[in-house]
């Protein structure tokens, strides 16, 4: 799962980024509206945390522009303007949810989790596929009830596959959703992580579809 955080306050941006990374997301950051708009327009994010008051281009314009161009990723707006007129204006501009400043980080994490899950069509905070169970709130993975230790990249990979289980996902798509923007992308590394994940949750869970990509939970589909 890859997120974008657009927040002009450097400290708050860092705090958000750290907290989201700790929760298992790949996070890109932007410090102004123009940069944020460009990133959101060119990279495939699973969700965006967007401040409303931004330099160069304000948050609502950024959001409206994305929606006009057909970018439909879920967007959580952060706003200090906590009047309902401001919140409703944000929702009308295309936001999916809002958090009013000052906020507790847990609230942002919960809202982001809900947005990502909802966008993938899941109602529960627990994603399961056969013996594999992922608790999104706690960020814990179990196999047949036993905890499995995963690195952050492995967790992101499993989480993305679980969110989109049953679908064939190309290596490019995985790369785009697992790594932060400045990460040195080598599609081989995806294969490395898939290999390691197979060792931890069982070799049959992730199916390789030659020339197309990977699929999780295929056997239960057929």
């Amino acid at each position, binding site marked *: 799962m890859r997120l974008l955080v657009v927040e002009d306050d450097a400290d708050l941006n860092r*705090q958000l980024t750290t907290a989201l990374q700790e929760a298992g997301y790949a996070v890109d950051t932007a410090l102004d509206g123009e940069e944020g708009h460009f990133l959101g327009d060119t990279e495939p994010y699973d969700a965006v945390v967007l401040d409303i008051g931004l330099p160069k281009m304000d948050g609502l314009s950024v959001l409206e522009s994305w929606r006009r161009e057909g970018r439909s990723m879920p967007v959580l707006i952060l706003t*200090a303007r906590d*009047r309902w007129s401001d919140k*409703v204006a944000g929702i*009308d501009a295309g936001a999916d949810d809002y958090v009013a400043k*000052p906020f507790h980080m847990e609230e942002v994490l919960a809202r982001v989790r809900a947005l990502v899950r909802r966008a993938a069509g899941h*109602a529960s905070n627990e994603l399961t596929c056969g013996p594999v169970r992922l608790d999104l709130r706690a960020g814990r993975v179990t196999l047949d009830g036993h905890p499995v230790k995963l690195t952050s990249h492995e967790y992101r990979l499993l989480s993305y596959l679980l969110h989109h289980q049953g679908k064939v996902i190309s290596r490019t798509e995985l790369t785009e959703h697992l790594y932060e923007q400045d990460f040195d992308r080598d599609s081989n590394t995806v294969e490395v992580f898939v290999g390691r994940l197979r060792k931890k949750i069982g070799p049959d869970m992730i199916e390789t579809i030659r020339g197309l990509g990977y699929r999780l939970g295929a056997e239960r589909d057929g």
Partner: protein
Amino acid sequence: MTDSTGAAPGDAPRGKPARQPSLATRLVAVAAIWSALTLIAAAFVLVELYRTAGERAFDAQLDVYVKSLLSDLVAEGETAAAPTTLEAPRMLGEPRFSLPLSGWYWTIRDAGTDAVTFASPSLVGDPLVLPAPDGEGTQSGFTPGPTGDEVRFMQTVIEVGGEPRIIAVAIATEDFRAEVAGFARQVAITLFVIGLGLVGAVFLQVRVGLRPLGRLRESLSRVRLGEAERIDQDLPLEIAPLAIELNALITSNREIVERARTHVGNLAHGLKTPLSVIANEARAHPGPFADKVGEQAGIMQTQIQHHLDRARMAAQRRVIGVSCVVDPVMERLVRAMSKIYRDKVETLEWSGAQALKFRGEQQDLEEMAGNLLDNACKWSAGTVRVSARALTDEGGRDMAEIRVEDDGPGLSEEECREAVKRGRRLDETVPGTGLGLAIVADLAALYGGRLDLGRSELGGLEARLRIPAL
């Protein structure tokens, strides 16, 4: 002009100030004083003219009698220059010269000795004392007669039979004076009536002429009550600029409020981001120091929120002449809520009231309805029902009622009472400032409305918000 509605509410505590006389009173009073003075002067002139004309007529009559006396004095067929005999004049065709002390007298005296040659029988021997004539010619004037009553006399010195003689006729002025007094009375009555008519005309003129001022006042009062956005500028030339200026004032008032709100918003943004940073940093590094920082950041946040709310409330009260249609505002909110709570709320029913207008700021309606809806969605088990309708309250005012119901756990009567008090937080587990319902109640009270909480037929809370409508 009586004025019961025009006084600003702020005037009330000062009691009854010494009021300037009204324009109508001033205009009518000035007109009344001026016409009274003019008419009194006119009356004096008229009476004086009448009296002068009367005296002239009097003198003409006296002159006729003097000439008659002279012709009687000189016997027929002789000339005045050389009369053979002097005859006592006859009665001059006027019987009153014979009646004793009738007020009609004549005498003929010797100019040298002042001895009476002949006198009318009416004098019955009394002298008719007249001032000595100054040389030749005719002289007339007023003098007391033999009974002491005033008479008008005319005397002329003429040579009859080689000797200068004074022929004098005098008639009592009593009748003449009575006639002048009667005329003066009639003039006074007539002019008084004319005066009344003039004042009445001025009064009408003022009434009709000042009517546009009344219209201006009504227009202004409609703006103040929020029934109109601007003052009607279709007014006479003299006061149209006043309406234009007032409209400019209303516009600038709105702008000031808008600016104040923008400043408040900027302040909020400026403070809340650093507060977020401080609070999050404190939570990320547990310890006594961090706890203290976190606690103080929380207090700061509450303080900021409290004062921002108060600033908004204060700004709100000075806004005049605003209103907004309820339905579109509610529809936007319902749309936003169903998006925010799409996981939680399965049915969000909404029934509107078409053209119903709220007499106040759209932002405040959004704030009140938004908090109620947010609260309902937060607590509901899946169903929220929202409706708006027009009604008339006990005082006969037009009100809008916005009803928000949910199927959540609801509140007990005690909790309902507590919830609308300031700053209560009923359940710490559901995020929110805990001020939601209290803010709604405060805002509604500012507008002269109210918030009632009770149990809904859906099972949860029912909030009924009543606010003034158009």
